[in-house]
């Protein structure tokens, strides 16, 4: 889910000018491609409505997803507020574990997930809110032996790289 909303100044009659956009992610069961449906927002009544159904590119071109919130108030006191909120979780399936190789992992078999992450900072003083990217680092998530889990990424305010690395063995293997 990705959404941006807030106040964009005022109308001519002084009433607040709302804006908003929400994207719902849906995956194609065949290709795994991500599709988005867009919701818009009425600028006067702040009412959300269904906008359109076409694919829409979100964020940077690497297709990264994040768990983050951003709030920009460019001019203190002025009626301009810009909020971004993005959230996602993963369904991970661990099964058909192959215990082989020169050094097969000893039981209990534990599965781990790892991804490169990237911090992203918005400069609210820029009119286009251009993001600047920080250093990348990795993080290991414990998954357990086997089964299906819904994983919520533990670190917020980061963008996660896909596809993530999933392996069976020790946490220090990768």
């Amino acid at each position: 889910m990705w959404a941006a909303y807030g106040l964009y100044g005022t109308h001519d009659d002084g009433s607040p000018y709302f804006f908003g956009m929400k994207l719902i992610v849906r995956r194609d069961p065949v290709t795994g491609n991500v599709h988005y449906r867009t919701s818009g927002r009425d600028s006067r009544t702040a009412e959300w409505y269904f906008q359109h159904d076409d694919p829409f590119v979100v964020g940077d071109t690497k297709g990264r997803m994040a768990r983050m919130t951003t709030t920009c108030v460019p001019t203190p006191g002025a009626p301009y507020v810009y909020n971004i909120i993005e959230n996602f979780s993963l369904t991970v399936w661990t099964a058909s574990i192959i215990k082989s190789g020169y050094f097969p992992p000893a039981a209990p078999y534990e599965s781990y997930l790892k991804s490169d992450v990237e911090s992203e900072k918005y400069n609210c003083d820029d009119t286009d809110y251009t993001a600047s990217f920080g250093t990348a680092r990795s993080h290991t998530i414990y998954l357990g032996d086997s089964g299906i889990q819904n994983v919520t990424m533990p670190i917020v305010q980061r963008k996660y790289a896909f596809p993530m690395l999933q392996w069976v063995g020790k946490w220090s293997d990768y």
Partner: protein
Amino acid sequence: MKQATNKQWFWIGLVLALLLIPLAMWRWNPERASPDNVPVPVRLRTPQSAAQAPGISVSEPSSVRPETAQDRLAEALLGQSDTALGPEARRLLGQALLSLENVHGTVRRFYAGASPRSSSVTVFHGYGRVLFMNDYTYAARACPELDPQGAGIAYTNALAALDEPGVLEAARETATPSDLPAGAGRLAAPMTDMYTKAFTGGLPAETTQCYSNVLAMLRSSVPTDPLSTDLFNDAIIYAMSKTEVDEMEAESMRFFSRVARWEAKGQRPSLNELEGPVQPADLTPPNVHASIPEQYVRMRAVYREIFGYRFALNHGITDVGFMDALSTLTVPATALWIHIQPPEP
């Protein structure tokens, strides 16, 4: 004329050798010379359908020309009029094609003015493909005369066959349900290891509980064993797809409700609050236009149409109460990717 020196002869020879060696390697390449390695072109479209295209004439002996509707269907899907196909295999293929046509027809009806890039249409067409591949894989499991690895080519042929005249009529003729009892509209194919493993192992407890609910509901309403055919698989995919739509709608409504609350209090957005427990106000947030819930209503209707047709055609279940009872069950979509995908050959 000045005589060429030894040094010049050396350079002339080197240049000639550099030209001639690749030429010789190309000329006497054993892989190229052997007639055994000439690639055979894959024939996706049949000579019969090619002959129907304008401007192409294919001379074909009349002995192999398909004569019956069953032959025409087998030729359209498999690329050959295979006389070795049994009646059950033909019936399963006909059902698969009709199911695919129903998915496309339903999407055309419910998304009449939608753009061709519409994500809903794309996802539903993906469903049509997955269901066809599931049907073909099931048919190959039940009838050994079918090639288990031909699902992809059969789907390509089926897409073309949807526009060919006469093929759908042949499929309807072939797939007409006979006088079988409800739930036994298909030849029984016991579950393979792949399905059994996915149904029993590695699932969270609540998912297993939901599967048990679906299985109990099927056993109470269908006289035959739901696990002997792909009836249970169809029911699970329908329940999971419907649950996914429900979850998407609840997630949207919760977000709109939270935004209204944050803005009223002048708060910043908060991930913890967004993922917090559902509150009564989240279900009907005040500032949502009717077009938001309408799209979810439409998605549920499309799923119900697609699977209601499958339950009637494939399993002989035409009871409206069956779909109502199945629609009340929820199955978390955590296992969608296992059950919806047929095993890779």
